């Protein structure tokens, strides 16, 4: 077994030495501490003694050659089985007390740390907020007044940043529709909304198919469920029922769950999971959290999940995961009032279901005009992927389930 003797640093910070003269040759038998070689450094000329006894196997360099510290000086067969002797080394140093410094992205909105935390907790992207502080700095009030936060996770540009299709830019009643006369640069929140709208509208050829269904049974169904003495019953809303219906329909018609990639279009993607984005209005604006794998949830589970997401949305505790991965969106524009609308499909999806306001309206029943609660419903669809007949069939499937909610129990 060879003992490898590497050139040590014998002079406090030397990095090389020149071989002046070898005192031994290959094959020589040497004893411990026997002088092996004379080396010359910047500081001194020194003899290096052998660390072990044995037979010289090889010399690391010829006379006149400069060796660097750590390079092999000589190999000696010392007959042992242990690996080369290590000089006493300091233990590997763990990193010392260092505070990490994150890299800075190219564009940084200016805001105080406390404001940043507020924005983080509110789910507001500072890049979308108009700063009214000095030098365009974003103040805490700016964050609180901020309109639409992101529907999709900010770091994924390909996922699209689609704030709510219809309700983009919801503002507090006092500021609704208010803007001083003159020309304003289109930036901040409005700028982001503008860009997203243009992308969706130019890249996705929309068709909309609308209908109004008799919601009597739906209302009755819901009333009876809510009167059940069962935990979670109170959370069952028409929205939750519609979500279950939509999920069933998406399983029936997987293409409606899909989307087109590229513009005008390179590929059609049909995902494995059904993830429903549920548009919600909160104090801080509109958010669209996602119910993942919605098709395996029964009505109560769906209602519970939607309620949890709504609660989190209200307190600003939605995570990036909560906002990611939607394959289809439901927007309850009826909550603002309104009967018919043409919701815009979020880029990265293929269709969107809009629910209008439930209200008493005239309905023809057996030749008579009666006042019944009705629910307007609209399906927006990407015509590259979904033709009129599919859109029609899908919407009808949802409408059938909402018209007679018992269908949700019997399947089919």
């Amino acid at each position, binding site marked *: 077994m060879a003992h490898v003797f590497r050139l040590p640093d014998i002079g406090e910070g030397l990095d090389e030495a020149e071989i002046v003269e070898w005192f031994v040759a290959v094959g020589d038998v040497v004893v411990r501490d026997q002088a092996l070689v004379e080396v010359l450094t910047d500081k001194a000329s020194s003899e290096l003694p052998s660390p072990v006894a044995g037979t010289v196997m090889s010399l690391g360099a010829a006379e006149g050659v400069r060796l660097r510290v750590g390079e092999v000086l000589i190999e000696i067969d010392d007959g042992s089985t242990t690996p080369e002797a290590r000089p006493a080394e300091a233990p590997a140093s763990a990193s010392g007390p260092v*505070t990490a410094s994150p890299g800075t992205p190219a564009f940084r909105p200016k805001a*105080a*740390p*406390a*404001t940043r935390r507020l924005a983080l907790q509110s789910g507001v992207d500072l890049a979308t907020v108009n700063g009214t*502080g*000095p030098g365009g700095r974003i103040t805490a009030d700016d964050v609180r007044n901020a309109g639409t936060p992101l529907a999709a996770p900010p770091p994924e540009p390909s996922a699209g940043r689609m704030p709510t299709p219809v309700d983009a830019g919801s503002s507090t009643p006092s500021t609704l529709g208010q803007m001083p006369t003159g020309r304003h640069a289109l930036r901040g929140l409005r700028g982001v909304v503008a860009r997203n709208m243009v992308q969706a509208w130019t890249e996705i050829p929309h068709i909309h198919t609308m209908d109004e269904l008799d919601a009597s049974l739906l209302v009755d169904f819901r009333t009876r469920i809510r009167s059940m003495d069962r935990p979670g019953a109170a959370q069952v809303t028409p929205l939750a029922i519609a979500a279950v219906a939509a999920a069933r329909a998406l399983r029936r018609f997987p293409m409606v769950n899909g989307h087109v990639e590229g513009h005008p279009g390179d590929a059609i993607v049909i995902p494995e999971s059904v993830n429903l984005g549920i548009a919600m209005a909160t104090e801080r604006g509109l958010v669209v959290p996602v119910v993942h794998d919605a098709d395996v949830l029964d009505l109560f589970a769906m209602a519970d999940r939607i309620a949890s997401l709504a609660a989190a949305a209200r307190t600003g505790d939605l995570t990036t995961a909560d906002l990611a991965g939607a394959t289809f969106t439901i927007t309850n524009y009826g909550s603002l009032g309104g009967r018919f609308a043409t919701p815009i499909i979020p880029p990265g999806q293929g269709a969107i279901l809009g629910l209008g306001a439930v209200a008493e309206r005239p309905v023809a029943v057996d030749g008579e005009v009666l006042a019944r609660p009705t629910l307007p419903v609209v399906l927006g669809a990407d015509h590259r992927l979904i033709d009129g007949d599919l859109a029609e069939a899908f919407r009808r499937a949802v409408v059938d389930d909402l018209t007679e909610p018992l269908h949700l129990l019997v399947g089919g």
Partner: protein
Amino acid sequence: MLQAINEALHGEMARDERVVVLGEDVGHVGGVFRATEGLFEKFGAARVVDTPLAEGVIVGSAVGLAMAGLVPVAEIQFLGFSYQAMHQIAGQVARLRYRSQGRFEPAITIRAPFGGGVRTPEMHSDSLEGQLANIPGLKVVTPATAADAKGLLAAAVRDPDPVMFLEPLRGYRGIRGDVPDGDHVVPLGAARTARQGDDLVIIAWSYQVELACRVADSLAEEGLSVAVLDLRSLVPLDIEAIAAAVDRCGRVVVVEEASQTGGFAGEVVATIVEECFWSLEAPVVRVSGFDVPYPVGMLEDTFVPDEARIAAAVRRTLETA
């Protein structure tokens, strides 16, 4: 404050016969500021020693006394003259425990006055606390009240580690207050809330605490709620107290007499950034001396942060959106 210091020394010498006081003029005269008055008469020449004029050996022999198991309390007449002993302070006092791997207990206290505003000659007012704080193994303590002077000095003498006990020159006669009788110990490493407040906290030590409190009081009349945190110990630093104060207020002004670059206020700001970044509503502002040697008498008032400068910094920080 001077009497409080004197009381503490009397108390500690009576309590522990291992305590030995040494320095220039500390014995017969009782110290050039009378801080050690009465000790010589009461405890004798063996325990209260007038040394030759040599800061190096005052500190170096204190190391030897500690090695012998005694508790030396050395005085350096003015902190600026500790430069003459710095090799013993930084290389020996601070490292005695480390170099002996715990064999020797360096229960050494070095007292020295510092700080300006009293028209001293050159080198008599220099603030070196930042430099001392950077010496590992050395504790640095700066009382701001008379009661704390007594309590912290008692704690320092009893501490098994070496302590630089820095007394505010201007405070000797300028700081007055109630001092508890008898045994009074204030633990090292615990800051003190000198004024409660919610809008902004002034972090200061030594004489600057007194000024900060005056500023806080006058701003209170305008309805501004300004807190004052007296660090008391720079090493060990009460990180939690700083974090709590900043979390509560969100705005901070740090005040020091020393020159700004490399001063201890920088350490405080770094600690705030590490601990309470998300609470900050405005940048942290330092009010410090200028980056020049401590100046002559006519320029002194410009150099040393006064109430006006502190108040201006406070207002600016409060007004930052």
